[in-house]
């Protein structure tokens, strides 16, 4: 099908974009990479009346590191993150996650901030950003606020972004030296949305886990932190038993909804395997193995 008619706004500066969004209020919808929004419009599952295209906002096309934070602007494409040497050094977990989003032709257009704003429960980037304790910077004509990602995403395809606001940037704390990371997912076909995926970040101290972050996608209405697994990993050295225990703790109490990929128990099982694999790889990377 074809999209329903809409009015098209294409600001060339951030201030102009915020003024347009302010004026449009509830009616305004941001168009970033369009890789989630336009398919919905083609099916007429979304019929926005006003689109504000942010692709001309060159000032938001950046991925840069300063003061222990990797900042990713709203126009930065997923493929730019994948290629960014700076990001590879500062947040390798995020780079590993983005490489598993769709295929290159989609990543050439899709943006990092767009994926966060879209808040698909199966999406890789929100889960990786959750494990990394990222912050979302929301700008509007009235000013700016910084929202921890776990407060920003509030449900399936739902965020706490207010009408008139734009996700201007996501901010990712730089991963410390000596940390190990991994993003592991399973999908029936390469490039498809994952049945489930796990993002893991481990900070070791003398061979033992000092701090662990574990986040999952595809197992609930939004990405979730696995607090149980994080606790169980504290002090761990990476033995088989410790890995198994952490993976089991990660999925305890989860009841993923069934879909055409499989039932709830299947998805939980897949999630458990992903967590185990990710922890294992994170350990070997933290030790300098890979």
């Amino acid at each position, binding site marked *: 099908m074809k999209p329903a008619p809409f009015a*098209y706004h294409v600001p060339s500066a951030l201030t102009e974009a915020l003024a347009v969004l302010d004026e449009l209020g509830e009616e305004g919808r941001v168009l970033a990479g*369009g890789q989630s929004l336009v398919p919905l*419009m083609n099916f007429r599952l979304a019929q926005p009346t006003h689109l504000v295209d942010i692709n001309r906002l060159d000032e938001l096309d950046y991925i840069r590191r300063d003061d222990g934070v990797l900042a990713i602007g709203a126009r930065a494409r997923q*493929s730019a993150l994948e290629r960014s040497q700076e990001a590879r050094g500062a947040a390798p977990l995020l780079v590993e996650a983005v490489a598993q989003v769709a295929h290159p032709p989609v990543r*050439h257009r899709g943006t990092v901030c767009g994926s966060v704003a879209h808040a698909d429960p199966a999406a890789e980037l929100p889960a990786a950003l959750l494990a990394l304790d990222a912050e979302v910077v929301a700008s509007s004509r009235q000013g700016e606020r910084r929202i921890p990602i776990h407060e920003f995403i509030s449900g399936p395809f739902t965020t706490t972004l207010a009408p008139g606001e734009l996700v201007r940037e996501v901010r990712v704390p730089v991963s410390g030296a000596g940390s190990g990371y991994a993003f592991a997912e399973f999908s029936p076909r*390469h490039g498809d949305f994952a049945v489930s995926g796990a993002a893991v970040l481990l900070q070791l101290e003398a061979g033992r886990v000092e701090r662990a972050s574990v986040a999952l996608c595809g197992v609930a209405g939004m990405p979730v932190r696995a607090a149980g697994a994080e606790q169980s990993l504290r002090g761990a050295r990476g033995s088989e038993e410790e890995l198994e225990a952490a993976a089991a703790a990660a999925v305890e109490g989860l009841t993923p909804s069934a879909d055409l990929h499989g039932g709830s128990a299947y998805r939980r099982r897949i999630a458990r395997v992903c967590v185990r694999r990710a922890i294992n790889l994170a350990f070997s990377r933290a030790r300098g193995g890979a």
Partner: protein
Amino acid sequence: MVDRHRIELVVNGETETQEVEPRRLLVDFLREDLGLLGAHIGCEHGVCGTCTVLMNGETIRSCITFAVQADGQEITTVEGLASNGKFHPVQEAFWEKQGLQCGYCTPAMMLRTVEILRENPSPTRDQVREGIASQLCRCTGYQYIIDAVLEAARTMSAGAETDGKVLVKQGAGPSSAEAAAQTQGSGPALEEEAEDASRQKES
């Protein structure tokens, strides 16, 4: 009243100026307004890849990009691959290795191949397999397509050794009417490709 926007873009080296409705998909603009039927429509939601074209040298899905978003950009479709009556080496290779059956996926498959080989001029079979995973083919079972991509890699790097500008000679048409008057070279996107290819060869 229908809201229309004036856009100016370069398609296969020609500057095109048109008025379009914002909801016009790029693939419909190419097919219906410009008569370039090489970009095919399959799923219309970004999954199958048959509508893939190059925007500023990068593959994109033209079914989930609006024509208004191509304003000021440079688009290459399969019609822009051959030049001066000569096939692009990728086209030659698909012909030679019979990398198609019905041909529905083929224009997009070849444009993706141009990109894959620009990024990695001598891929392994597995790398090609992964690279073309963004494009669905309903007929071939992919084996012959992979053969064709590897054949193109062979002929293009053989060409690059004797002549670093093989893509420029056989690549897309010039990027604008002006450039056409000056040279017979390819558009910037493909010219860059040739440079990238020779750079990567050197390193």
